[in-house]
């Protein structure tokens, strides 16, 4: 019941908030935010309870099932394992953080909070779903939710810019999800008996060599793999499918950017692990090296382009491309069945998942910070800033922690992830991992440059009265970054959960 409740409560909250009676605008804003925060926090509590109950058997735990469309082999099945539990918990935490964070809601409070709660429910659904049909339903609904969030509350130089970015995001990612629909059908039609249940498909391995003949399956397996890979590569995003990301990130309101970077991007990499790596490992192995190459391209290209950005939010957006490249490098290393030993591959996969969690927290915090900057300055151009350290010490401290975590400073979460990815990656694809290290170097440069531009140097005249961070903002950022520090210093609690699934998966 726990997991279903964590899906139902935010949905119920969304409906409740949408029909909340109107009083004065200021009271409404405060009441609605509190109500929405409470509803958003319930899944966090429930998932913490689920974490406490988690046993780490390597399979799916706390599974809840109900029949839905038996004629198509579709059932309502949710559960957790070592991969989905940390991601679901991250989702819940980021949503609470985003909902309470102050932002200009343009007078449409009800729709904003209702949409956020709806998006939380469907995002949790993507990670908790153990049925392909259910997974697809939640995946598409998350696109719809984010489309409206960016389109209505986005900001840009002109109002149509936000709508254009929203449409580009929607078109691109829906095209990917239609490729995934065809791939799901291809996979479903190969199962015997017909089922959409993930656990059953993992057990059946319908597109493996014993079923379709030929190493790693023939053309059907390839087509299905490509369909899924396109969808997940667009969502991750990997170069060259990443062009929807910068406009969507920059024009979205800060909390929506946080969710986009912290939650939606993870769905792509999660899909690679949950569907491709678990259900079609032989086919994945054939594509592991090309995916590794694309991952390294994302790492280096993402970092280089980020370095070239003069716009704060665009710079952070491109570092997302870079960090998801690390994740993909780890997954690609884990997918190769013949090169490297099991320990290296397990390490790479664990590192990839830790990177997902760490990136969510770190970049989520960075986007919230950029939201605070926008609220005070109405500009993202780095050249407009300077010397803010004297006026805003809390902002400086928090941004510095986030920046150092993002570049992989030891003692912070980013280092744990990148260390594992590279050590594991060296064991499998030494050359790729070596080139990938360049990414860390460039990321270091771009973040140090960012800190210097924002906080050091001369304070321009117009920021003389720069308002300090509100206590709420400090509290939210503090929680996120405290978690980053904690994972960096003592990651065992997280690694135990992830490794329970990773070791089982790569040993298959």
């Amino acid at each position, binding site marked *: 019941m726990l997991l279903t409740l964590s899906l139902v409560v935010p949905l119920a909250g969304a409906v409740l908030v949408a029909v909340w009676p109107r009083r004065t605008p200021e009271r409404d804003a405060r009441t609605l935010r509190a109500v929405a925060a409470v509803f958003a926090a319930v899944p966090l509590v429930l998932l913490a309870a689920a974490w406490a109950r988690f046993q780490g058997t390597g399979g799916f735990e706390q599974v809840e099932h109900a029949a839905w469309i038996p004629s198509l082999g579709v059932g309502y099945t949710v559960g957790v394992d070592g991969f989905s539990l940390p991601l679901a918990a991250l989702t819940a935490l980021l949503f609470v953080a985003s909902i309470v964070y102050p932002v200009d809601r343009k007078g449409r409070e009800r729709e904003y909070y209702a949409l956020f709660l709806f998006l939380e429910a469907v995002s949790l659904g993507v990670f908790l779903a153990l049925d392909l049909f259910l997974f697809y339903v939640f995946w*598409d609904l998350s696109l719809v939710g984010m489309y409206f969030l960016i*389109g209505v509350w986005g900001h840009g130089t002109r109002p149509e810019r936000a*709508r254009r970015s929203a449409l580009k995001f929607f078109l691109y990612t829906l095209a990917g999800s239609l490729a995934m629909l065809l791939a799901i059908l291809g996979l479903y039609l190969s199962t015997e008996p017909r089922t959409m249940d993930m656990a059953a498909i993992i057990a059946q391995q319908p597109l493996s060599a014993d079923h379709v003949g030929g190493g790693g399956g023939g053309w059907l397996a390839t087509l299905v793999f490509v369909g899924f890979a396109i969808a997940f590569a667009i969502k991750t995003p990997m170069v060259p499918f990443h062009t929807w990301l910068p406009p969507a990130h920059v024009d979205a309101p800060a909390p929506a950017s946080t969710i986009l970077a912290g939650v939606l991007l993870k769905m792509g990499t999660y899909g690679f692990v949950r569907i491709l790596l678990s259900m079609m490992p032989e086919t994945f192995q054939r594509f592991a090296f090309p995916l590794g190459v694309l991952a390294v391209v994302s790492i280096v290209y993402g970092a280089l382009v980020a370095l070239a950005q003069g716009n704060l939010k665009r710079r952070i957006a491109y570092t997302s491309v870079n960090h998801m490249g690390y994740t993909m490098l780890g997954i690609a290393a884990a997918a190769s069945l013949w090169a490297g030993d099991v320990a290296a591959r397990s390490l790479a996969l664990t590192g990839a998942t830790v990177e997902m969690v760490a990136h969510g927290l770190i970049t989520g915090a960075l986007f919230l910070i950029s939201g605070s900057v926008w609220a005070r300055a109405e500009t993202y151009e780095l050249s407009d800033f300077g010397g803010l350290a004297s006026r805003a010490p809390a902002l400086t401290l928090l941004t510095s922690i986030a920046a150092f975590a993002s570049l992989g400073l030891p003692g912070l979460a980013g280092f744990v992830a990148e260390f594992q990815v590279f050590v594991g990656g060296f064991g499998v694809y030494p050359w790729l991992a070596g080139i990938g290290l360049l990414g860390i170097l460039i990321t270091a440069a771009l973040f140090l440059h960012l800190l210097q531009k924002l906080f050091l140097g001369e304070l321009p005249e117009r920021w003389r009265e720069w308002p300090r961070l509100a206590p709420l903002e400090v509290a939210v950022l503090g929680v996120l970054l405290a978690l980053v520090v904690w994972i960096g210093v003592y990651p065992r609690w997280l690694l135990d959960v992830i490794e329970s699934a990773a070791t089982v998966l790569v040993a298959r």
Partner: protein
Amino acid sequence: MSGSHGMPVGTVALELAVLVGAVVVLLWALFAPRRLQGGAPVLAAVSLATAAVLAARQLAGAEALTFSGTYSLDGAAVWAKLLILAVTAVTVALSVAWLRTDRRFGEYFTLLLFAALGAILLAGAADLMELILGVLLSSAASYVLAGYHRTSRLAGEAAIKYYLLGALTNGLMLYGAALLFGVAGTTTFATMGPVLAALTDGGGWTVAVAAALLVMGLVFKIGAVPAHAWMPDVAEGSPAPAAAFLTVAGKVGALVVLARLFQVLPEAGFAWRAVAAGLAAATMTLGNLAALWQDDVRRLLGWSSVSQTGYALMALACLGRSALAVPGLLFFLAAYAFANLAAFGVVIRLRGLTGRASYSGLARARPALALALAVSFLSLLGIPPLAGFVGKLALFGAAIEAGFTWLAVVAAVNTVVSIAYYARVLGPVYFGEPSKLLAEETPVLGPPPPSWWARWATAGTAISALAVVALGLAAEWLLAAFAGVRILP
């Protein structure tokens, strides 16, 4: 129950109910005083309800051919008839307020019932003559429905285009039927099938030409390439409730009888699978591309209807090769019907506002209508968990299973393309500022109707939108019912 002597009238009870209803409504319209003309839609609704009850009873009965094998009572026919009856009932609700100032208010409902009867006859037709009867009856009534606003230039243009195209294709269809009768010696599908199958080469050119001509008539009815040109005009020019009906009901009946026809034609003589697949691809692509340029919401809905026909044709290409083909077709038609009705319902409630620009900001001015429009468009797109998604899933699955993976890919690409024009309407609805017309609530076409008349249209829209959501969530109920359905012979 193929009684060769005597007429098993009981098997066509629901058709009789609709027929009698139509005549009663006509008499009422002719002789009832002005202030009692509102009884016409009530009588129409009663007749539809009676027919629906009779159809539901037929569901429980055996699947068989009746009337010497010319009329079919199989599952597909009965479900199609139920759908047509439901669509007609919703149309009656949507039409009440729209036409209340028309002098020929009552006769409209007669024509509606006749058009529905024609579509119902098509759905059950298992004989060439029945097929022609159904096509002609539904077409004749539809032409008049399309041009019902007698002083409107747009309506006249729509009706004339519809009629000319219909006359041409129906004429070709008659030739084809005659040719096919000449080759097979019989008009009944059940006996025609074995005869045609026994011919060498599947009958060669004669059968191919005959079948092609015959199919043309049905292609016109469903609004597929190349006889699709009437749909956007009818959607734009005819009275909005009639447009809602005409873009849905004829399609349902004609697709079922087309499936029936395809099953008896020999593949060697007439490569109907390839034809169906080709028509499907062409129709969905043309419909989508043309919709991209539309600024008039009603014309856009017309072109989108054309493209939805293309998706439905995919199921026909997969007949016999995939167990998902028939359930997929029926479910998709149900989802499409209600989504289209909901969209037109919104158009009807916003009487007179048809430009894309005037829909801007609808979400702030009329949030419930905007929600209905969003539900409708998202279902037509195929966003889960709405009914349109389950329909498309079943169709894609059928196509892949039947070996038409390329068709499924084309359909997926077309779905992506269709996002553009649906979003171009939905985007401003939610993101834009209310347009002047919406903000001032200026009625564009005459004074607003008295509230209890208008309530029927709202009810019709609400029911359609709810049906879209409910069918999506409770898809199992219908899918399980469709699973055992057959298409005889």
